[in-house]
């Protein structure tokens, strides 16, 4: 019988207890991994933001627009490599609840500013040549089970045409995707000119501009220069990095980070207490046995290692099952939630953090019992009733 077998045997000497502990450790790691994946999906906009990409918004609020002419003026600012603009379309398909995240953009510059978006079907020439062509992200295409080349009526809940109609017919000329799975592609773009020429009101206005500087070091300077251009005009601007804007938007929902920390903290505090006290009790029950092992010549460090390995093994067992369940769960729901949480999946980072936590948790819960076992006095222990 080698040490590993001995550890395994002592862990499962009380099967019910071991299974219950595994179950309870499993729940904490299930919660940790699932919430971790959700948090990552929510933050993907911040994490995939390019360091040299800036957004210029109306200074009062990003829902307000600015004149179309601003686009050309920003293009002249020193340090701006490429600039594009976008306008919120507020689209839906047939029914208002079939929300379609959609923007009216200038296609050519848009794909320049977002080089991570790669066409996978259709060609750029057709897209640029035809006014009623739209570019659609792979995730959105799949969500509505549309086919490339299909014509769809896109209704806006904001904009209308002079005749009162709110429908723009578009053809899905180009499908794009991104190599990085974390870059969301759950939206579509239609041509700004096509949208603007039939607007009943708010014509020749754009929602916001996105630009690249090529060098994060000059971001601040370029941002200041742009905003200075429009000071004291009816539409003053505010330029910030893409990441800062994404972060501020997330904060609008509430302090999600704090809520996640509290929940995960509560889950771990629960199992720490349960597993911790049970381990102490389990080793106490074996005091006599430990004394016998010592008599047989097991050194105190070896006994210490045994107990610690036992608790780490227990933690890994429960934790890995929890991690596995979380992975299955995420695969199950990622399709249904692709619209709200694009890129919801288990990542190597989460797995790494979870495994590190498992080992740490095993060490923490095993430390006290291991010290107790190591210090067991043969004479008193064997004399114990």
């Amino acid at each position: 019988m080698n040490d590993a077998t001995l550890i395994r045997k002592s862990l499962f000497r009380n099967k019910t207890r071991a299974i219950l502990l595994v179950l309870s450790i499993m729940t904490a790691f299930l919660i940790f991994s699932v919430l971790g994946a959700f948090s990552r999906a929510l933050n993907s906009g911040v994490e995939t933001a390019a360091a040299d990409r800036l957004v210029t918004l109306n200074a009062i609020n990003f829902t307000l627009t600015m004149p179309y002419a601003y686009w050309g003026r920003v293009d002249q600012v020193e340090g701006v490599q490429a600039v594009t603009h976008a306008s919120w379309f507020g689209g839906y398909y047939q029914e208002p609840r079939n929300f379609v995240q959609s923007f009216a953009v200038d296609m050519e510059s848009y794909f320049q500013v977002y080089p991570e978006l790669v066409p996978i079907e259709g060609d750029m020439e057709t897209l640029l040549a035809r006014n009623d062509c739209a570019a659609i992200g792979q995730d959105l295409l799949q969500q509505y089970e549309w086919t490339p080349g299909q014509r769809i009526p896109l209704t806006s809940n904001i904009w209308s045409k002079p005749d009162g109609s709110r429908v723009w017919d578009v053809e899905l000329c180009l499908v794009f995707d991104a190599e990085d799975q974390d870059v969301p592609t759950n939206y579509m773009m239609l041509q700004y000119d096509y949208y603007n020429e039939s607007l009943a009101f708010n014509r020749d206005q754009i929602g916001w501009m996105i630009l690249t500087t090529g060098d994060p070091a000059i971001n601040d300077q370029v941002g200041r220069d742009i905003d200075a251009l429009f000071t004291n005009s009816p539409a003053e601007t505010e330029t910030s990095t893409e990441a800062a804007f994404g972060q501020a938007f997330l904060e609008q929902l509430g302090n999600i980070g704090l809520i996640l920390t509290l929940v995960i903290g509560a889950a771990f505090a629960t199992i720490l207490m349960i597993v911790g006290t049970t381990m102490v009790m389990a080793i106490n029950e074996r005091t006599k046995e430990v004394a016998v092992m010592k008599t047989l010549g097991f050194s105190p460090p070896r006994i210490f290692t045994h107990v610690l390995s036992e608790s780490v093994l227990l933690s890994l067992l429960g934790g890995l099952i929890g991690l596995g369940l979380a992975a299955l769960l995420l695969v199950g729901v990622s399709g249904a939630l692709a619209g709200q949480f694009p890129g919801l999946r288990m990542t190597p980072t989460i797995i790494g953090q979870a495994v590190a936590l498992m080992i740490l948790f095993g060490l923490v819960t095993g430390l006290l019992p291991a010290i107790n076992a190591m210090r067991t006095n043969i004479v008193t222990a064997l004399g114990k009733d």
Partner: protein
Amino acid sequence: MLKQIGAVTMINLRSIPQRWGMSLATVLSVALVVGVLLGFLAMANGFRATVDGSGADDVAVFLRAGSQAELNSGLGRDSVRLIEAGPGIAADAAGDPVLSAELYVIVDGIKRSSGTEANLPLRGVGPDASALREGFTMIEGRMFAPGSSELVVGEGVIRQFEGFDMGQTVRLGSNEWRVVGVFSTGGSVFDSEIWADVGTIQNLYQRTGTVQSVRARLTSPEALAGLQAYVADEPRLDLDVTSEREFFASSAGGTSDIIMFLGWPLAVIMAIGALAGAWNAMYASVDARTREIATLRAIGFSGFPAFVGTMVESLMLAAIGGLLGAGATYLIFDGVSASTLGGGFTQIVFSFAVTPTALVSGVVLALIVGAAGGFFPAIRAARVPILKAQG
């Protein structure tokens, strides 16, 4: 039999201190589960209470058809005139309809909790606006003067956001405004808004002649149907008309449902973890008393009292945990102010509300954990063989 049950139960409960470590772990873990559940429920209920409490039955809201939210809506001057002529709208002392055509612009405020920018609604209103909000009072300063660049601010905005304090000068784009008053509507959605003169906002935002919503006081809630028929029959109007209560109720659902859908599964998964803890503690309790139970059997006690004793011990620990969790959540979370993005794409300030129903759900969840955790150990207790008395 009852005497036996009572005696064994007392032995069980009195022996808890001997296993205080595991018992305490069970109590605290159940408390944490209940705490997480109630925290989420308090958030969902608080948000819902704020939004649901905002609408009146006798106020009609007019939006452009299909726009769903004030932000997306737009109405011309002609539409407002036609609405004024509609049936069932209450008149004031001078005989004019009690009606408010309002413009709704989103501006940035700084969230106190994070220091980041957040969407706040700036509502351009006319003189009738405050009469159309139940319980509207100025709690500081005065109302803005018509045609001026003055703002009044809801008390929720003051609580959660920087930059709109009383007397402060606010720069929105290239225009400067002064905060001259703070109002309250008793915790409704409007407390999260900033109000100014509708004409001034129309001019500054180049929206002369257009508004986004019209609110009108109805002579009675039943008058709504007549007004809806009038709008449907009038070809020059393309509007959705709802009661204000309905308008808010439909926008509250989403956010509070999401919070509920997060809270319950999390609590149930955590409860499974705590259940394992309770189970373990009860097995330990039964194992520790094996000899004692066997002795009781030997002197004529049946197995049933042992079963009940263990169940009561488990339920007791869980109930203490449940009450502890509920009490702590109530003390920590009830009334805590927070804000999130609401249906109108702007921040809604609300207070966490730990409701009696939620407290009951929490304690019930705790008792389920206690009952399930005690059941199998209790069966083991009932089946202890008499021979074990010799141990």
